[in-house]
């Protein structure tokens, strides 16, 4: 804060009108000039004219484009018009923020001037801006990249769900049109789409739940066992248990795919042949699902194991000793000390494991490309939502339906994220005590 003497030093502008400054600032900069803030005013004026001049054409086409998606086939490419349109909307949002800031700024400066507040000199003003703006400057580069690589593509994807973009109707030869919720209606009412959706969705849920839970259970069992005081070579055992996590997963999944091969895979040839069994791992949907869950447990338990091992070592020995004095059995100790402690410390990460498997494209696609095919269905027997989206996009070029299914996925992921927030927040509140 400024010292009191400076605040009351100047009474020349006691009839200055903040409202007038705001009204003048409808053209950004004028209000600032009225406030006698010359440099800021000129900067704002120049900036807004420059923006208008530079972006007018781009945004004009952009808004026209996002509304019509083009009018002349072969000449207008609906996709680039959509990109330009969405960018225009983004830019407009940014400009709107600037504009509102400009109005508020004019008002604030005017009321300060009216009270006789003396403004800092130019160099001091620059220093103040730097100070206050510092966190924004730091976040800006990251925000910029994030906007273009993550946020913009998601928005674009949402927009595609409301168009008729597929293989038969694709730019530049054809124009796209907005079709409202038609794609959603088709997905939920057309019998073959609906049955595909129901079977993929239910398998996705089973897959996420079973593979992740199994992963956690195996990790928990092993972590408790290895943590037993009598076990020797703990470090070596832990290192080896972490190996499946350390090897790049695309390598191991492809190797597994070869090993599970029906005809010449090592599992059928080396492990099961002596018993006279041969299992159709890749060509039967149920066996495919079983093998894929086993592979995911192999791939995924080490991370959870490492996590649990770390937490287990931090559980105080006194608690167990106290439980022993009370005559608690080993199961009691696990049930009432180990389990709650470990779960409490790792819950957010475990929820992330569920989200990770929900989106686990690599395992599904690399193992069997989502196959085997199922009769009367558009998706394969082991396809989960994300691999189905990939197939619809890159194999069938059915972009509109891929986008619709992506939105459904997004909603589910957001629900998981919400759970995660609540966990993290409850954690923070716990920590305050």
């Amino acid at each position, binding site marked *: 804060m400024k010292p009191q003497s400076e605040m009351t030093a100047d009474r020349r502008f006691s009839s200055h009108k903040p409202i007038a400054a705001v009204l003048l600032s409808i053209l950004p900069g004028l209000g600032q000039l009225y406030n006698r803030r010359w440099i800021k005013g000129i900067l704002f004026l120049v900036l807004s004219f420059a923006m208008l001049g530079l972006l007018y054409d781009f945004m004009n086409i952009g808004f026209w484009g996002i509304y019509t998606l083009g009018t002349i086939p072969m000449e207008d490419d609906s996709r680039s018009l959509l990109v330009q349109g969405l960018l225009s909307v983004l830019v407009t949002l940014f400009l709107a923020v600037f504009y509102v800031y400009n109005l508020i700024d004019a008002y604030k400066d005017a009321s300060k001037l009216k009270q006789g507040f003396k403004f800092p000199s130019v160099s001091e003003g620059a220093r103040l801006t730097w100070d206050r703006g510092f966190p924004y400057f730091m976040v800006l580069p990251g925000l910029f990249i994030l906007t273009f690589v993550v946020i*913009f593509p998601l928005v674009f994807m949402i927009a595609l769900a409301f168009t008729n973009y597929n293989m038969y109707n694709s730019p530049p030869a054809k124009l796209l049109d907005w079709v409202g919720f038609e794609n959603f209606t088709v997905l939920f009412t057309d019998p073959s789409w609906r049955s595909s959706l129901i079977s993929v969705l239910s398998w996705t849920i089973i897959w996420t739940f079973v593979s992740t839970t199994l992963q956690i259970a195996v990790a928990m069992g092993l972590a408790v066992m290895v943590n037993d005081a009598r076990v020797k070579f703990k470090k070596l055992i832990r290192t080896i248990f972490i190996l499946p996590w350390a090897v790049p997963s695309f390598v191991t999944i492809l190797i597994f795919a070869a090993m599970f091969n029906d005809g010449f895979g090592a599992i059928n040839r080396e492990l099961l042949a002596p018993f006279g069994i041969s299992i159709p791992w890749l060509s039967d949907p149920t066996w495919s699902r079983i093998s894929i869950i086993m592979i995911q447990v192999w791939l995924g338990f080490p991370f959870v194991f490492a996590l649990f091992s770390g937490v287990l070592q931090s559980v105080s020995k006194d608690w167990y000793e106290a439980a022993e004095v009370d005559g608690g059995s080993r199961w009691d100790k696990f049930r009432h000390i180990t389990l709650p402690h470990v779960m409490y410390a790792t819950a957010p990460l475990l929820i992330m494991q569920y989200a990770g498997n929900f989106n686990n494209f690599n395992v599904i696609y690399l193992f069997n490309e989502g196959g085997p095919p199922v009769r009367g269905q558009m998706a394969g027997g082991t396809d989960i939502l*994300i691999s189905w989206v990939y197939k619809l996009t890159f194999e069938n070029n059915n972009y509109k339906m891929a986008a619709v299914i992506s939105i459904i996925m997004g909603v589910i992921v957001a629900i998981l994220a919400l759970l995660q927030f609540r966990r993290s927040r409850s954690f923070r509140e716990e920590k305050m005590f």
Partner: protein
Amino acid sequence: MRKTLKNRLELTGIYLIVLLMFLIISYPLLWTISLSLNPGSSLFSSSLIPENWSFVHYNWLFNDPSSNYLLWYKNTLFVATITSIASVVVVAFVAFAFSRYEFVGRKYGIYSFLLLQMFPVLMGMVAIYLLLNTVGLLDSLWGLVIIYIGGGLPMNAFLVKGYFDTIPRDLDESAKIDGAGHFRIFFQILLPLAKPIIAVVALFNFMSPFMDFLLPRIILRSPEKFTLALGLFNFINDKFANNFTRFAAGAVLIAVPIAIVFLFLQRYLISGLADGATKG
């Protein structure tokens, strides 16, 4: 007497289970190594213990004129180095702001980072493809670099922010009183103390281009621009000339160094993740 017997049985049981796990873990890994040493090219003839060992596939990768392996290695190193350096800079800035400053949108910024980290980049693939196409970065390693930086940003920023939060604020408060500016506090106080997490973020960003085949598959078209993972994937994805043993040889050469680095670093990652998740 009965107690020691029970004790011994239990311990044997534990060791048996550990041994079983060892077998389950090592079977596919050993199988890969033996595959890479098999002279043939298909899965038919290969067995866990090769009849005649040979380094013919390794030799092919490095010495055959039609092999792009070294070129792919160079591409991957390029992508990995730039991704790693740029990520660390961008991420550290973001984490610094989120950890040390109060500003409008901070709280929602953290939440949206948490949310975005759960969306796979794959969901916006079509848009990324079109966007890169418009700016002419399709089939270019730079395009790949940008996507990697952006895609990993929320997760990485979260990790580093969690670590920054554990560094006492008193340190920078007192530096501020002594007249240190924002950047000075950042570079001379926070960064040196946050070296472990910075190293982890740098390394994981360095390693991910070695492991990811999907993004390169969508973005890169010409074989001389491939990264290792994509090139190797194509060894077996080729319907007419799949070469599993060659893939295995190339895979062993990436997997071994990555696994070694990983085993050294995993405990930092675990503690970083745990801190980030519980304190976010």
